[in-house]
């Protein structure tokens, strides 16, 4: 009897730049409806890893499978069509369009109307655009130019755009970077709620440990390109290796150095 493939299965993902191994043999999987946090110190390879999942970067070796289907070597736009939404660390939105139009463009793409030359875009799926904006709490901003939004609002808009193709998987690269503490908690609560309701798998990277430990079902930890820990928040929190990475090995080294000096 075959077991249904997991939503996302990553196997032996590897990427190096010149002599530097940015990501080495990373494997993990993600179930539908699960919220998985990818953490690690700066330079651990999180962003490289992320870009490979989304198709922006090609792995040297390894596989990424979405519901059993290989996505390595596919372009970001093809992976999006397979049901993967993405938000960026630094927001990427259409600055000269209104908030509603930003969502409408994603809906137009999802509805395969990109080469419709004579339809009316301002009226394109207005209700769905409105619904998505309401969902992220941006309903009142629909007619505002995107270029004059506050950063936190742009992040919420990105979430609405990412949800436009009814994704099975959401990839969020530092979803709360650059936001006020209060906003961070709200945005992640919202994301978690949507993900559970619609059974969307969420993979996110994050530096804010409060956000990570409050919302992640499971955490994987990267350090220098390799996976060093995986487990529930409690397990990861008590993992000595993770503590060493986060508190810094330099401190341990210095302590040892002093001991050596005193003898």
């Amino acid at each position: 009897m075959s077991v249904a493939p997991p939503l996302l299965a990553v196997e032996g993902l590897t990427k190096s730049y010149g002599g530097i191994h940015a990501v080495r043999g990373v494997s993990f999987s993600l179930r539908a409806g699960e919220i998985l946090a990818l953490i690690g110190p700066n330079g651990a390879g999180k962003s490289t890893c992320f870009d490979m999942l989304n198709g922006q970067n090609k792995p040297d070796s390894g596989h990424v499978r979405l519901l059993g289907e290989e996505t390595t070597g596919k372009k970001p736009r093809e992976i999006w069509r397979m049901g993967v939404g993405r938000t960026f660390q630094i927001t990427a939105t259409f600055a000269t369009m209104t908030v509603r139009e930003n969502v409408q463009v994603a809906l137009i793409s999802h509805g395969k109307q990109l080469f419709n030359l004579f339809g009316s875009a301002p009226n394109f799926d207005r209700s769905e655009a409105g619904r998505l904006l309401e969902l992220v709490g941006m309903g009142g901003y629909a007619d505002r130019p995107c270029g004059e939004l506050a950063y936190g609002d742009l992040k919420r808009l990105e979430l609405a755009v990412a949800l436009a193709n009814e994704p099975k998987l959401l990839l969020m690269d530092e979803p709360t970077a650059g936001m006020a503490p209060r906003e961070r908690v709200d945005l992640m609560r919202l994301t978690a709620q949507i993900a559970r309701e619609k059974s969307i798998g969420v993979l996110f990277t994050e530096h804010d440990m409060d956000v990570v430990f409050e919302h992640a079902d499971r955490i994987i930890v990267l350090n220098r390109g390799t996976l060093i820990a995986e487990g529930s928040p409690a397990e990861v929190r008590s993992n000595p290796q993770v503590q060493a990475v986060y508190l810094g090995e330099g401190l341990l080294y210095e302590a040892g150095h002093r001991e050596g000096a005193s003898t």
Partner: protein
Amino acid sequence: MAFYVVQFLTGLASAASLFLVASGLSIIFGVTRIVNFAHGAFYMIGAYIAFTLTERLSGAFGFWGSIVLAALAVALIGVLVEMVLLRRIYHAPELFQLLATFGLTLMVEDLVVLVWGPDDLVGRRAPGFKGAIDFFGQNIPSYDLFLIVLGPVVLGILWLLFQRTRWGVLVRAATQDRDMVAALGVNQKWLFTSVFAVGVFLAALGGALQIPRDAVHHAMDLRIIVEVFVVVVIGGLGSIVGAFVAAVLVSELNAFGILIFPKISIILVFLVMAVVLIVRPWGLFGKPEAAARKTPGLTVNPWRPLTSNERLASLAALVIAATLPLFAGNYALTVGSEIAIFVIFAVSLHFLMSVGGLASFGHAAYFGLGAYGIAFLAKMAGLPMIVCLLLGPLLGCMGAAVFGFFAVQLSGVYFAMLTLAFAQIVWSIAFQWVSVTGGDNGILGVWPEKWAASPSHFYWLALGVAALVTIVLRVMVFSPFGYALRATRDSLLRTEAIGINAKRIQWTAFVIAGTTAGIGGALFAYLKGSVFPDNLGISLSVDALVMVLLGGVETVSGAVIGAIVYKALNIWLVSQTDLSKLVLGGFIVLIVVVFPKGIVGMLEMLAQRRRKSSPPGSPLLAKPIESAE
């Protein structure tokens, strides 16, 4: 065999000047991020001043001294231009920088005629290099050998300058990250000025060194700038070694192309450029460009369709325009038809440039192709006018499909340079392939049929087509496709992440714009009764850019207003002065510096201020172009 060797050496000698100019352009771009369109103009002034000086100063020292002195003098002019004009526009969108330096080029073209007259000037031979060397029965001018040596020597000097001096280190650092260099306390102003001076010096030296080989004339700027653009696109903008290799490559292709396709030698260069672009879009020695500065434009004003009142007003304006034949004479009607045709041309460029963010500097190519399409169909195939009008623009469509495919692989200034080069190639074909296109004599006798022959009937035809085209393109701006196109303009990263194939969208837009321009060209052929290579020349491309800019590049309806105002002004100006290029160039510079929003943009801003009445809303909406300091 000896013949081919000589041909090869001639190619190498031509490469020297090309390399000097191209390296100057590359250095300036590397640091200031400005593609200096006026580089060809500096090359030309260098040649003219060197001509005058060599006539005055005698002897070997006089000649060589004059060459260097001329280059220094032009460098000084360059410094002035940089301080007075460029410093004001370093932070403007790149389109504005290209246009301002192009305006400068236009002004220089008229100024040199004013000072040196319109005739070709033949300069002196270089002392010590007057003779020729016999090579197996073929003559090689000894001056050519001098130039062949000079190219690598200049490359070496530049290399030393950049690797071994403090200034060179700063320039290389600024090329990588100029903001960081500024943050480290380097006086950016003087760094930029000195770099510009060096670049202009190289261009002028290239021009001055040409006088023993070629006559000096007032159109040499455009010829060299197109070749230089081709060189930097092939070699990679910002790379001096790339400029050298590509200059040699292009010169050799020209030298041997004449042997293979004597009529249309430029085809060979085009083919090589196309291959390079497919394999390495950033050039042989260039690096992939980091994401450009985020300057979607001057405002963040979202677009909206016309309200029903505005629609009624537009309709009323159209009806009034349609009554013109009731009271105007034939001359006014011909002018009216021409304006209507230029409205078509302007809105087609607007679609590509404002909606798609792709500023084409060679849009006239598709206008002209439409015109030639008509000439071929009507004169050679003898088809009826209606059929011609429907099929003629297809030539523009095909041209846009071929060139657009390559052009959309690039963006920003590369896109501008490439479209210009393509347009110039089409122009050369029309000019050189005399047996098909009639060359400079054009194709005459393309007259409309009886039903459209009278000025009033033709005016109604042109007006009707212009209104139709404007409406159709406007519908497209607010169609799902138009939204997707604007999305690709605003953020390529995001469009890709929501499943949009940006290149295909942009290519489609290019074809739509090219076809529409072809419709304008088709009507233009019937209006004038003839077709000439000028119908696809650079000055026409620039007319289109200025029309869009004058109306307001960030508005939806600016192109229409811009075309009407500009064309009317232009026709009036040409009847008033011989120095129309000088006035036009000055006008362009003026718009860019003090009036960057254009007519419709200004009106919109005023309307918005009045609506808000309280102090202007968002600072973003009212932000003028910042000056460099």
